[in-house]
């Protein structure tokens, strides 16, 4: 009798545990779906609204004057690429080196704490303020808007994100790996560059991609810096078009034709960001060995 009742008790407990287990699993799956849902919804909506306006002209023509049909955003696509290249050249090395300093050389120093605090504050500064800063630092002294100023504004926005993710990723590298390098008689700087940074590189690259994707869609910092341009621009010294700017201008215009182009532009912007991120992922993952964590 005794044995039978413990048996049922045990079965009951096991059933309750089973229910809690499935409940938790269902919740986790639902949460995941909820996270993906907005992205999928936006993408589908963009496809519905924008795909019909996409044609070859969109990718090889510059905008037409109001009233004329057709035209494209070729100059804005190239302009965005230019701005992002300038931003990355400035922001990626500065962010990574800053993060390396915070994690490896300046740990616990007052300077490092000050830099970390500054980076966190900079991360929270509204992007339009970044634009005003670049405006007063570069546009005003030079006397004209330029692609360079736009790139600098975006680049400065990339620094704090990259800097802090680099630091976090480096701190995650196990202490024993650093000791292994030091124990081989490798100088500290060499061990940091060739071992620690290399071990953390997948995470550092993710940080760079996050920062890149974030500034790729920024409009506000470009308003007073890159300004926008309806024509081809081939130099960093002149105003340049950018996809987010073009979308902004077209979307607030009163013309249906322009609205359609703005939708198409938004679709292209998202696809290009996804492509760029996937390309970097592919290129950087090719060297990874079997079983590397």
């Amino acid at each position: 009798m005794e044995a039978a009742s413990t048996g049922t008790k045990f079965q009951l407990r096991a059933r309750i545990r089973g229910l809690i287990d499935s409940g938790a699993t269902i919740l986790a799956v639902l949460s995941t779906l909820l996270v993906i849902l907005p992205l999928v919804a936006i993408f589908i909506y963009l496809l519905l609204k924008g795909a019909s306006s996409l044609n070859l002209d969109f990718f090889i023509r510059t905008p037409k004057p109001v009233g004329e049909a057709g035209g494209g955003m070729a100059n804005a696509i190239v302009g965005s690429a230019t701005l992002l290249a300038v931003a990355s050249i400035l922001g990626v090395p500065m962010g990574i080196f800053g993060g390396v300093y915070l994690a490896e050389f300046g740990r616990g120093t007052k300077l490092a704490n000050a830099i970390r605090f500054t980076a966190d504050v900079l991360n929270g500064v509204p992007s339009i303020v970044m634009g005003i800063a670049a405006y007063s630092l570069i546009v005003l002294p030079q006397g004209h808007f330029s692609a360079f100023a736009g790139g600098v504004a975006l680049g400065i926005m990339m620094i704090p994100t990259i800097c802090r993710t680099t630091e976090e990723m480096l701190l995650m590298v196990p202490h024993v790996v650093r000791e292994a390098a030091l124990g081989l008689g490798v100088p500290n700087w060499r061990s940091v560059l060739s071992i620690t940074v290399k071990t953390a590189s997948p995470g550092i690259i993710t940080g760079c991609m996050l920062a890149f994707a974030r500034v790729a869609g920024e409009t506000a910092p470009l308003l007073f810096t890159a300004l926008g341009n309806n024509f081809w621009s081939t130099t960093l010294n002149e105003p340049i078009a950018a996809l987010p700017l073009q979308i902004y201008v077209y979307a607030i215009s009163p013309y249906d034709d322009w609205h359609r182009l703005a939708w198409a532009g938004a679709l292209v912007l998202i696809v290009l960001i996804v492509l760029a991120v996937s390309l970097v992922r592919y290129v950087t993952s090719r060297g990874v060995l079997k079983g590397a964590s």
Partner: protein
Amino acid sequence: MGVGIEVANLNAWYGSNHTLQDISLNIPANHATALIGPSGCGKSTFVRCLNRMHETNPIARVTGTVRMGGIDIYEDVKPVEIRRRVGMVFQRPNPFPTMSIYDNVAAGLKLNGYTNRKSLDEIVEKSLKNSALWDEVKDDLKKKSGASLSGGQQQRLCIARALAVDPEVLLMDEPASALDPVSTSKIEDLIFQLKTQYTIVIVTHNMQQAARVAEMTGFFLNGRMVEFDSTQKIFTNPSDKRTEDYITGRFG
């Protein structure tokens, strides 16, 4: 060839914690010397003082002298230089996770600017053979990451990595404590072979292991060295009561 190590009045601190007190001993060349003692007795700190790894901790401090082959390692050379001549194998296997098996072994040479590919190949092969790992990995040298190996293989990889820079002394800080019995016996066989060419200092919690591999044994307790003598003497007829108590399992 290995060199002997003469340690005199070595003291070490972590912050205000006096972890090693007045250690003096002579470690013979081309032999294995075991250091035993309960956890926290200072034996790991002691080996870390022999390649100046102790001072990589910002709160650590050392006084006293350590001489290897006539050189005072705290006076005459830079820490980086002494660590090239004194290899170290750590408690937990710590291969470089992003590097292939080959690059792990070659790391010490490559990172110190040695790039002759042909002789690198030879050194990698020789080191992996010396650490009894060659047959298990020779087909995957450049394909697999060091982290993809089993724990025992990883530890032998770490030994190969330490051997590749051709050290005179090999320090092993509980090299088998994280391994299963089969891997442990492989590592012990290895120590047996290696001690003909290198001076080996091995920290161990396992007294049978000390008895099996080492000619000399030192017993540490509370930051002091209680006794240092031939392994046979320590295990059969120790002069100090505390050594006997520890060996017979009365504490620790």
